């Protein structure tokens, strides 16, 4: 109970930060806009990628959304390294709040940021002509999935941060995680198009499941894989929460 309350406090902290300063969200929106405004239409005009009947730009919009939210979450670990360099983490670890509630709370707080990051793309996608499923329940569920999965990615990043003691190293590792995750997923092309080895890899890539779920809910309306996707995301989150909670204390030592 106490743990749950602390998680909510961490989410509140993130919302308060966002209220004071949102410039980061605007700047981070530039890259995904380029993907859907330029890359999407250009690649789509070749008609080389089978997208199951939806326009190519529509097909990649969920993938691009998830890519930016994953960026946000993965770089959340950087904030942990920063808070280690300042004294905030030390002070937090001396409070009665349990370590796991800190880790999960901070991870879910990054989910809040991720939701805003994903939301900002929608009006732009609409202007470009992307057609979303008109079902508000589906849209809500898609955002819940983005929120939950961002927590898992942020926990991954906290895990990495507990091994990387400097920000410079973390930056490098962060990049090295995100781009492979993105390209070895179904974000830009269906898994069937990949070479067999990459196909195997994409099966254990959590990003693929997130993209599949969100694409089904927002664009194609094909939710046949939804339960499997949710199960995969839940397992990913649980494993990452446990691992990052265990290694969290390393950050300050």
């Amino acid at each position, binding site marked *: 109970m*106490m743990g749950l*309350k*602390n998680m909510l*406090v961490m989410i*509140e*902290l993130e919302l*308060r*930060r966002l209220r*004071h*300063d949102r410039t980061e969200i605007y700047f981070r929106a530039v890259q995904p806009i380029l993907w859907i405004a330029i890359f999407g239409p250009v690649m789509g005009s070749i008609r080389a990628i089978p997208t199951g009947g939806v326009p190519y730009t529509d097909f990649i919009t969920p993938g691009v959304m998830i890519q930016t939210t994953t960026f946000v979450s993965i*770089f959340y670990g*950087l*904030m942990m390294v*920063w808070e280690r*360099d*300042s*004294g*905030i983490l*030390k*002070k*937090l*670890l*001396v*409070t*009665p*709040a349990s370590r796991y509630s800190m880790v999960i709370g901070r991870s879910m707080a990054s989910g809040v940021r991720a939701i805003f990051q994903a939301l900002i793309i929608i009006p732009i996608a609409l202007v470009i002509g992307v057609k979303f499923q008109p079902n508000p329940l589906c849209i809500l569920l898609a955002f819940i999935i983005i929120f939950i999965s961002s927590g898992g990615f942020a926990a991954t990043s906290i895990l990495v941060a507990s091994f990387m003691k400097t*920000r410079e190293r973390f930056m490098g590792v962060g990049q090295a995680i995100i781009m492979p995750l993105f390209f070895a997923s179904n974000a830009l092309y269906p898994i069937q198009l990949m070479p067999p080895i990459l196909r195997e890899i994409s099966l254990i890539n959590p990003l693929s499941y997130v993209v599949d779920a969100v694409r089904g809910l927002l664009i194609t309306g094909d939710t046949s894989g939804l339960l499997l996707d949710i199960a995969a995301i839940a397992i990913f989150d649980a494993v990452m929460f446990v691992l990052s909670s265990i290694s969290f204390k390393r950050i*300050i*030592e």
Partner: protein
Amino acid sequence: MVYAVQVNGLVKIYDGKVRALDGVDLTVDQGISFALLGPNGAGKTTLMRILTTQLRPTAGEAHVFGLNVVREESKVRRLISYVPQEISVWTDISGYENLLIYAKIFGVPSSEREKIIDEALENMGLSEVKNELVRTYSGGMIRRLEIACAVLIRPKIMFLDEPTIGLDPAARKAVWERLKIFKKEYGVTIFFNTHYMDEADMYADEIAIINQGKIVTGGTSKELKQSLGGEVITFTLGNNAYDPRIDQEIKKLESIRSLFIEGPSLTVIVEDAEVALPSIMNILKSMDVPVEKVSIAKPTLDDVFLKYAGTRLEDKGRISEVVRVREMVRKGGRL
């Protein structure tokens, strides 16, 4: 009555090689202000981090209000508050919001929250800027906000790691005036690390001096100074006039308690300066050592430190480093 802090044979070895604490024994009474004085790298911060349950000792035991800091760490955390040396507030939200988040983490009931936060802000003289972003605060204001976070939960003991490092004298005084009031009102024990001699002298009821991982001596400021006895004569020698034979010759005199050389100054602690001064001057003269200046004073804590640790406490470079880092954190806030 149980001690606020009790430490027995505490050893901490980092990575199997760096011996940060080398058998520390220490007791601190409840309700006092206690200073751990020592140069950088003496083990002050390590000891404080063990007492605040952040690090586990390699050997030995430590208790806070009778609770073992390893076995009963979660109970210990309910009694203590801690202000690290580095900036420990979020600079991209307001001062009020910082306190609000902490109040919630500590589970202060929502009915009391407003009152307690306003009181803490008032106590630390921050009421007027409570809704401003912390990024815009001065160094002294940030320190007071950090202490406000620490007093918010009415701890039984507060651990402050270098609470006024890098602050100007007026800001330091302001911080301590507030702390003194808080201590008087709530009977909280204050355990602080410092390498400012005057700070320990003025604000600590008791002082322990730590050097190279060991407590070398302890007591009230008065006791420590009296333990040196007598008077301190300081000679400023002419350039490069030091000669190791000076030591031997002067030490032969009666009534010499200790003698130290630091740069161009020769410090001699004697029982009676009026008697000792002529004989020392004679020795220096006979060895052709030019003396530029002589001063006689009562012992200070600095002299106490010099005697027990063999070096003076001055360390300007390190202070400016901490100030630089704090400044960077304040401006950058968050990446």
